[in-house]
């Protein structure tokens, strides 16, 4: 079979586990060390797997961590309150010069740029996939 098959499996598994770890952290009201996270997961995965996932989530900014004794304790680092959302939407809508206050990721594209972006996107995806298949 193709080489990609075994590489795809654990990736999808990781994503699912990540979601489970996140919901554990969201459900807990205090920061958790990896052992506690592991204990609260349904079909207890390996300790190192939990560590890897927490590290990845931390890299993405999805969780924060602080030292508790000799281990890091993790906490979901996301605000999802309606009040915060309302404040942000109000700021974006007030027509002021937010470009000086907020640094964006992308903004609106012109039509010709949109075509160019689609072409570059195909190219980038192609190369990204090729890179992953090699690993």
């Amino acid at each position, binding site marked *: 079979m193709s080489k990609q098959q075994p590489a795809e499996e654990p990736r999808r598994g990781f*994503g699912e586990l*990540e979601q489970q770890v996140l919901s554990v952290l969201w459900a807990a009201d205090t920061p958790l060390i990896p052992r506690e996270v592991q204990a609260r997961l349904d079909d207890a995965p390996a300790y190192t797997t939990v560590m890897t996932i927490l590290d990845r989530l931390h*890299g*993405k*900014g*999805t969780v*924060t961590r602080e030292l508790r004794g000799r281990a890091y304790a993790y906490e979901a*680092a*996301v*605000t*999802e309150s*309606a*009040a*915060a*959302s309302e*404040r*942000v*939407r*109000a*700021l*974006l*809508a*007030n*027509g*002021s*010069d*937010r*470009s*000086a*206050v*907020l*640094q*964006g*990721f*992308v*903004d*609106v*594209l*012109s039509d010709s*740029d*949109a075509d*160019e*972006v*689609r072409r*570059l*996107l195909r*190219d*980038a*995806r192609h*190369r*990204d996939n090729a*890179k992953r298949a090699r690993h």
Partner: protein
Amino acid sequence: MRVFVYLPFLACIAASLLARPAARRANPRIATWILTATGLALAIAASGALALLAFAEVARLPSVAAYGRWSATAVGSRVPVPWWIGVIALLCMVAISVDVVRHARRYGQALVPAIHIQHQSQTEIIIVDDDSVYAYACRPWPLRPGVVLISKGLTRTLDDDARAAVVAHERSHLAHHHALYQLASVMIGALNPLLRPIRREIDFSLERWADEDAAAKVGREATAVALGISAAHATRRPRAFQAGLPHAGTRVPERMRALLEHPASRGRAILALTLSNAVLAAAAVALAAHNTELLFEILRK
């Protein structure tokens, strides 16, 4: 004063022409530093030159001459600035003042709620309940940690790797105080319309800087993909709140190409040329100011 007072304006035009090739070729971090330093120096030098020219006009008014104890007719014959240039300089100063006030007001309108968001947030990331696709870094107050604002629309659109790229990009904005550079770029553009191209290139270099930091974390291709997908979706969102955008289009294709083509970090010569422009302009306006002072010493009775 004769020639030197006009030099800063020429330097502004030259630097504006050099800004784009400089930003495209050089390392974005260095390009940001140099363009910001150049822009600020030129904005100040050109404002000084404008003030000198306008002063030459005002000094001709009898009441001003009486107050400064020089002869209005002597100014007319000795100061080497034609009356119409003085009038133009005065009008430019008025127009710029109006523009600066307008910019400051619009900046203040965004600053207050943004500082509020920054201070209220307990976490580094806020997921905004919004179907539009966007992500912003928010650190208007440099002494407090910043906040990343990510819309639900964006988290739904992107997969894990692309989300990681976005977070890394925004964190780079926060960590390197890009809000301060951006404030400088707004000031540069407001103080002198000739420097608007420099403003655009500072904004572009900031995005490139954050792109490179994200690429170092998650890979060049993954960052380019995240950029492309977000941009493609940003086009399709409702346009309700885009009225306040000062410059549409963030040159996403150019940023994607830079990520995919691994540009060699060149352009040192262009950057050096850009910066030397500013030094020259600053020296010229200092000289012009000094000469003016000497001239009015002589004219004083």
